[in-house]
């Protein structure tokens, strides 16, 4: 029997507001433990929360960018449970009336567009972090009260590829609207995966499990494949899938049961009496709508239309706001968009991958890439030299024009200068000269190569080629 995997995602995103959701402490990542804290975010007796309006604005931005309905009236609720990283012993979240609901984003997998439903987006506060020592556990409350949005999708995904496309899309959207830096490694984007399997054609969903502890796109893909396989095997063995929360161990490539449904917390949600309902007026909503930037898909369509780029290039470039901005800066000066794109898609992404760097870490501005492209176009440098200059731009963050000048890398096409080189090469390689004259045309290539080597690649290869041919013709 063929099985189909059904996947829904709960994505937690840390918002990049400057201060926390209910107090004025900094949200900045890192910092000595418990230095970004105050009586409010550490849950001291008698303190009260005051909602940071920016958090609501960011949630609305996320909602609008994912085609959600924005609730005119919503409220905040307490989710009660005991854990040392939660100083109030409740997390302030939203239960039955989230700010955003009923949205979607379109993803593309293998050339097909698919719509993934977004059930809801709500605001909540993050918890602190436990640090386990040898004989004690310590708590860092810096992250306590950092604002989060939780984005819950419909169970609309059917493969790890779709999940990846959804997450990449979502991440790009959130970066574009500037509500989060979406750094998975710093925990500012975290995903829990709800997964079930069912025989192809069956309408009812199978029993689902929830996978936690997924720290990278790769881990998510592996976890989905691993868990789907496990569930199918359970069914094939004639056993029953238990609704439970499981922890993915990426190193072992296996998931482990954390708790069953019966052991699940009763969170005793109830309306947070210390906070007033959130009322969003039409005017504010319009203001936020007007302030939204061009979103990834619109930008991609524009790249295809305006720059004549292939779909593939446009997808990759617009998949990250940083990369797309970089591209546009370059293309502003160097008008050949495809050439600029080739440099980015080729050399730039290759070197980033080699050095395990993120696009945010590109060490030079788009203008430099434009200059490099123009230097080649004008014939000031050769393509080979350009690649070397590019490496220097990357390692030293230097302007390519400066590199060319400092190192004298301009193409040499002056025949007077090159004649000396050509004659030297011919004298030093008499055997090749003879071979050529005997009809071995291949020898020409070798001689041109020698001349290039002699000039450290700076000679204009076409001029050298022409001159060697002429010289060889003279003394038959």
């Amino acid at each position: 029997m063929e099985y189909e995997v059904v996947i829904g995602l709960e994505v937690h995103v840390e918002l990049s507001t400057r201060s926390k959701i209910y107090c004025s402490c900094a949200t900045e990542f890192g910092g000595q433990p418990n230095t970004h804290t105050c009586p409010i975010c550490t849950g001291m007796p008698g303190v009260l929360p005051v909602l940071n309006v920016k958090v609501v604005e960011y949630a609305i931005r996320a909602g609008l960018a994912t085609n959600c309905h924005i609730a005119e009236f919503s409220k905040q609720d307490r989710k009660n449970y005991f854990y040392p990283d939660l100083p109030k012993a409740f997390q302030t979240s939203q239960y039955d009336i989230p700010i955003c609901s009923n949205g979607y984003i379109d993803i593309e997998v293998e050339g097909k567009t698919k719509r993934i439903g977004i059930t809801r987006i709500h605001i909540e506060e993050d918890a602190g972090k436990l640090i386990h020592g040898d004989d004690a556990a310590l708590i860092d409350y810096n992250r306590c009260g950092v604002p989060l949005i939780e984005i819950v999708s419909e169970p609309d995904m059917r493969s790890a590829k779709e999940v990846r496309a959804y997450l990449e899309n979502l991440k790009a959207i959130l970066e574009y609207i500037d509500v989060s830096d979406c750094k998975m490694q710093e925990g500012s984007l975290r995903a829990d995966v709800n997964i079930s399997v069912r025989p192809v054609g069956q309408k009812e969903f199978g029993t689902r499990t929830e996978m936690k502890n997924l720290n990278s796109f790769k881990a998510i893909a592996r976890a989905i494949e691993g868990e789907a396989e496990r569930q199918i095997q359970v069914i094939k063995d004639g056993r029953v899938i238990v609704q439970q929360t499981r922890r993915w161990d990426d190193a072992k490539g296996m998931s482990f049961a954390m708790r069953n449904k019966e052991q699940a917390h009763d969170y005793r949600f109830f309306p947070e009496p210390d906070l007033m309902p959130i009322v969003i007026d039409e005017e504010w909503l319009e203001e936020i709508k007007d302030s939204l930037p061009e979103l990834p898909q619109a930008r991609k369509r524009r790249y295809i239309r305006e720059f004549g780029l292939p779909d593939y290039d446009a997808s990759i470039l617009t998949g990250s706001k940083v990369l797309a901005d970089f591209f546009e800066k370059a293309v502003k000066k160097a008008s050949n968009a495809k050439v600029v794109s080739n440099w980015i898609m080729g050399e730039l992404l290759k070197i980033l991958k080699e050095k395990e760097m993120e696009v945010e870490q590109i060490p030079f501005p788009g203008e430099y890439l434009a200059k490099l492209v123009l230097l080649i176009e004008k014939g000031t440098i050769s393509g080979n030299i350009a690649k070397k200059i590019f490496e220097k731009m990357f390692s030293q963050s230097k302007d390519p024009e400066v590199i060319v000048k400092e190192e004298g890398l301009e193409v040499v096409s002056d025949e007077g200068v090159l004649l000396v080189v050509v004659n030297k090469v011919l004298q030093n390689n008499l055997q090749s000269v003879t071979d050529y004259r005997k009809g071995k045309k291949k020898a020409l290539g070798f001689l041109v190569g020698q001349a290039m080597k002699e000039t450290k690649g700076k000679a204009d290869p076409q001029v050298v080629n022409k001159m060697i041919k002429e010289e060889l013709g003279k003394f038959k």
Partner: protein
Amino acid sequence: MQLYELTVHEMSDLLAKKKTSAVEITKSFLDRIENIDSKVGSYISVLGEDAVKRAMKVQKEIDKGEMKTPLSGIPVALKDNICTDGMRTTCASKMLQNFVPPYNATVSKKLLDDNAIIIGKLNMDEFAMGGSNENSYFKPVKNPWDLDRVPGGSSGGSAAAVAANLTGFALGSDTGGSIRQPASFCGVVGMKPTYGTVSRFGLIAFASSFDQIGPLTKDVTDCAIVLNCITGYDPMDSTSFKGEYPDYKKALINDVKGIKIGIPKQYLGEGLDSEVKKAVLEAVEVLKKLGAQCEEFSLPLTEYAISAYYIISSAEASSNLARYDGIKYGFRADEFSDLLDLYKKTRSEGFGSEVKRRIMLGTFSLSSGYYEDYYKKALKVRTLIKKSFDEAFKKYDVILGPTAPTTAYKFGEKLNSPIDMYVGDIYTVSVNVAGLPGLVIPCGFDKKGLPIGLQLIGKAFGESTLLKVGFTFEQNTNYNKKASI
């Protein structure tokens, strides 16, 4: 006449006329505490040296020129659930026995800004849960009128301290009657302002949607003076009222002509002690003679207020008190085997039985499967009770009635019957359920000589009307002049 016997405005007059000093006044109260509080038990912490030093500083300012405010140099004591920076704030609980907040409650800050002298922290029922002050971890407070009797609660320390001249005035908190009932039992003036009028920032939460800080004073004039200090919008409290606040002293007018007063039939029915009833009805006659229009009417749903109140307030309490887990501050059990054991032992040993009862009640009513039947239904009742008050206030300016079914009872009388204790809140809880202001003023004594308090309930933000009626009543009667201990 001793300095400690004076009202706030009397002391303030003497200070303005340079007939006494803040230091003299402060010392007078500190001596009084030293001499008699061992009998009353109203204080958990007393600030001796520090209070005198502060009084000296304030007096220097007074010497230099004008009095900054009518509270300049006046001793005040705070219920021990109001946070004071650097000063132990215990909630009368083992859980917070040694807790010293690194911040001031907004009201503490306002009092200090107005140059009042904080002389100590007052005893109370643990976490403000109780009506007799027998639930204090430290010691019970005794009623200054009869030391064998309870002072009421939960602000029993606040009411007793004012009644026994152990402070110039006090702040208490009122969640279901916790200012008004002890004010009634101890024969002082107590006001629970409209929800949102006094900032709750720094008030250690019992039930967030009911809790309200208010003054306990020797007379209505003092009540108005203190309200002028502690009310006002506070950006630190999201439920704080953002609007204009009146000068409450302007309400102190001896005139009730034309004021319409309704007396709910339900407040005079079964369960009400006959002597209390008599005193209340006599008060009605006094007001009538002074020109007020008084009539009985029916205020429906009164009988459901207690159930709705105990369900919602316990639910909120179960969540508000969850933070006392032995992890960050406060009491932690000495020995435990793992995290769960740490939680269990800390909370079992750190909380008293009434607090545990409410936490369990609240946890239950929020649990899945019970939420709809209890918590949600109680919220609906709350909405209906609000509506029934709205209806009543279309006809009346003030609703009048008793504060408590009886006068102060003896220690132990109701301790083993929580339900009897809860029923004692019947006339006060509706006011909190509806978020309204309530003023209690002395209106007589029973045959045993125990004070009886008259409760005046106002429209939301109708404190001024209550003060006017209370002031007029006080000017024309003699009930709050009698000394106690």
